[in-house]
């Protein structure tokens, strides 16, 4: 039973999504229950697998149907994928629980179909994080992408156009990736990652132009998927127009899993030596990442719509992780991987908090924040923690990813990236304190309400407290607590998971 946990991680949500398409007549409650059950079981399997990986200190190789690689399909779960799997599982489960009200609102007629796509998307993401060969990775990439097109297009208004743009860009990205895999396959005759790594390390292939082209195509495809500046244009509209439940699922996970694929390709299929000595784009990529960080934050600063602001912050955060990965040292790599986990949770809690505020106020602009601390104290507190994490204030996890990234940048002498990280931190502080000031003290214009020295309002004043429903509030609070928890347990995460996956040659 325990040997089979790796396949359960993916199989459970896959079969749940099949079942979900069939149980329409049973009503939304059954569909919701089935989704939550499947996601919980899958998370349980992920956790069990992670425990096994940490205990044995070795990667788990799972051969589907006992067909041995390089012919059969192989799942490989090492320390890196275990961490990402658990992160995906937690985020998916929390946003699943959270979706009860908003998803029902947006999809009152076909909730079971919506949840089927939801589950299929999670299957694709989990699959990508555990796939052991590059072609299956492509298949799962397309599964999750197709599911996400469906989900995003369910949003209102201009969501169709935004999703269409995303569809075009996403397909181009996937095609680039597939083309690159084709080149690699022609040269090596293999698709299995470990096998590929073995073949690619041969002297004769190190200089090969075809391999270089293959790598270039693959990495460009992944960068499109991950919305690295300047390939990010599809992301803000697609994510900010989606329904609340969809945004909470997709925003934290899709781009982060793409970063994971980049790390896999760079360090598992190819090697650190090949990337930094043969390809040697490091300085260029770090410039791109720095531009992503700074421009993402500046554009976020200019937004009035809160969700759009958050999507531009995602663009900036992608720059953090890309830069960290290309710094070519242990601290930078640790920072990049840690930030995958941290940013997943950060984005999740901010999107959920903003979603709850929009749910109660019906307003997506920054005006909705006014007086939120008094009306929705728990939501506001989680928003505060998420903001502190983006800014990088200890002991939230955002501080520690910044710590490692800065350390890596200092060691690599990448001062442009150091400057970009610091500027981004300060910009984020301005962005969020502008909102938090309004959230804390209300609108400055109606001074009669906020100044009046003689009017004591110790929480129960004129404004009524009205939190979001419990199914939204609980996952929100858990995500907020997880930000602090991850920060406090940084040492454990780094020692037991990330250190094991640091590529050879650093």
């Amino acid at each position, binding site marked *: 039973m325990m040997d089979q946990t790796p396949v359960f991680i993916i199989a459970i949500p896959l079969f749940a999504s099949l079942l979900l398409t069939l149980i329409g007549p049973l009503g939304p409650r059954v569909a919701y229950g089935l989704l939550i059950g499947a996601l919980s079981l899958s998370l349980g399997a992920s956790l069990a697998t992670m425990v096994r990986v940490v205990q044995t200190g070795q990667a788990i190789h799972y051969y589907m149907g006992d067909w041995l690689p390089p012919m059969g399909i192989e799942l490989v779960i090492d320390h890196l994928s275990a961490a990402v799997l658990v992160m995906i599982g937690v985020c998916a489960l929390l946003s699943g629980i959270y979706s009860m009200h908003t998803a029902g609102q947006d999809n009152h007629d076909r909730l079971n179909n919506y949840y089927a796509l939801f589950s299929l998307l999670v299957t694709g993401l989990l699959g990508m994080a555990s796939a052991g060969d590059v072609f299956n990775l492509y298949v799962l990439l397309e599964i999750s992408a197709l599911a996400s097109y469906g989900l995003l297009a369910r949003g209102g208004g201009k969501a169709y156009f935004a999703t269409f743009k995303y569809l075009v860009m996403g397909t181009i990205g996937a095609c680039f990736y597939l083309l690159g895999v084709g080149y690699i396959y022609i040269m090596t005759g293999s698709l299995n990652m470990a096998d590929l790594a073995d073949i690619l390390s041969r002297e004769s292939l190190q200089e090969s132009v075809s391999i270089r082209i293959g790598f270039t195509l693959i990495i460009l495809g992944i960068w499109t998927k991950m919305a690295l500046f300047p390939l990010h244009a599809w992301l803000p509209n697609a994510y900010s127009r989606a329904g609340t439940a969809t945004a909470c699922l997709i925003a934290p996970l899709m781009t982060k899993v793409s970063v994971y694929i980049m790390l896999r390709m760079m360090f598992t299929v190819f090697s650190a030596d090949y990337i930094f000595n043969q390809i040697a784009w490091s300085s260029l990529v770090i410039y791109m990442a720095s531009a992503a960080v700074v421009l993402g934050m500046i554009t976020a600063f200019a937004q009035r719509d809160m969700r759009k602001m958050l999507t531009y912050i995602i663009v900036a955060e992608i720059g953090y992780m890309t830069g960290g990965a290309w710094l070519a040292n242990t601290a930078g790599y640790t920072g990049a991987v840690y930030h995958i986990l941290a940013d997943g949770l950060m984005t999740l809690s901010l999107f959920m908090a903003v979603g709850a505020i929009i749910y109660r106020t019906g307003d997506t602009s920054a005006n909705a924040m006014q007086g939120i601390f008094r009306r929705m104290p728990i939501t506001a507190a989680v928003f505060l923690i998420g903001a502190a994490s983006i800014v990088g204030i200890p002991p939230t996890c955002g501080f520690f990813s910044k710590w490692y990234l*800065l350390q890596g940048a200092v060691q690599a002498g990448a001062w442009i990236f150091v400057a970009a990280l610091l500027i981004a931190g300060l910009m984020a502080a301005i962005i969020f304190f502008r909102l938090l000031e309004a959230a804390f003290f209300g609108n400055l214009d109606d001074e009669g309400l906020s*100044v009046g020295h003689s009017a004591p309002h110790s929480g129960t004043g004129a404004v009524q407290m009205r939190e979001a429903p419990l199914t939204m509030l609980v996952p929100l609070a858990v995500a907020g607590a997880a930000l602090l928890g991850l920060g406090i347990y940084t040492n454990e995460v780094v020692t037991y998971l990330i250190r094991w996956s640091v590529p050879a040659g650093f």
Partner: protein
Amino acid sequence: MFPVSFYQIAPVIALCASLLAVPLIAVSGRHPNLREFWTFAAAALKFAMVLSLTGWILAGNVITVDLINVLPDISIQLRVDSFGMVFALVSSFLWIAAALYTVGYMRGLAEHAQTRFFVCFALSLCATIGVAFSGNLLTMYLFYEMLSLSTYPLVAHHQDREGRGGARKYLTFLLGGSVGMVLPAMIILFSLSGNLDFADNIYGGIIPQGTGNLLVTILFVAFLFGFAKNGIMPMHAWLPGAMVAPTPVSALLHAVAVVKVGVFCTARVMLYIFGIDVMDELNLGVAAAYIVSFTIVTASIIALTKDNLKARLAYSTISQLSYIILGVALLTPSAVQGGLIHIVNHAFAKITLFFCAGAIYVASRKKNISEMSGLGRVMPFTFGAFALASLSMIGAPPVGGFITKWYLLVGALDAGQTAIILVLLASTMLNVAYFGPVTYKAFFGKPNDSISENPKIKEAPLIMLVPIVAAAIISVLLGIFPHIMMQFVRMVTT
């Protein structure tokens, strides 16, 4: 003496006392007396814990407690030594005095949002003790940021345009300094030396041999200006802006907790990260001494021009804070002792002055010095305390400030810095010039009509007057019995 295991727990209790009080204060918002009881209970517990550690520390022990191992090479660590003790004793004691005074002030003016106020007050005290007891730079940074954030609502308390503007400026300078300068400097330092623990003595530091001089200088500058709470020009601009806060906040936080945390962090980093040897070798001490000398003189001159009493006190604070850093920067044992003892002397004197300003406001609603003519005749205790505290600022015997001046001057002579002696003398003159007239006019000036014709103006309520007089008397006692605090300070330099 207590069992040894007690000394492992006491610092943690001292740290957490006010943190535990936060939820209690928050839930008893509707019962003001109960709410204030929690504040006093936490303050008393905190002070008792800090006090209980004195004997052990004076016996030459250093307590270290690992709280959480947060990064593979760094943990959140508490460390109690004589240097931190000085600051912890002062701030935990003054919390009790300030709590008394605050209750009187907030109720006297029927201020709004008192629960939020007391919650943030307690949080900021937790952060202050955290800074005093930090065992390494990361821990100190954590509590430093916690203090910036928890004092933000206090500064913005009035929520009007002025309050919010002041608070915005406050955060901009403090976060800008800490995120923009201290954080990268800390990470570079960590990359160089592999740890961030404070050194065991003030001479060696932790910077490895052979580090480039330029890099060390850049780090030094980043720490000196990055801890913007220390009010060194040009990072001082937040301080006058933050004076829009209610007076108890100005008193405790902007005369004692916040600014002293800034100075404490600067001194801690100078002495225990860089070390006297490195600073001496690269002439960083002299450079810092001249930078702060500029602040001392300029801030005093600006103070002369201010008619608003709190603004004058704010600039006086900026000037006096630099005394502390000046002492440390001179690097001779006497100067370092003079600088560190000024943490204590200035705290008691300045809190008295701010308390007086608040009492004057509560009693007469007057903010400007020019309107206070003759006010001393109806408020003799308040202005008497004000006079004593002014003497401490000026550095006249027998008040505490004299001890500071004495050690600083001896230290400057030892260091052979004639220019610094002149700065100290000029600053003393300026202090006389901007504090003297306040007291003189209050007692001997002709009362203007608004005071003589208004019989309602009398001393502030007793709950405010007691802390004022007590702080002033302690200020004098510190001058007569300097040994009480000097014994801690001497341990730092030996």
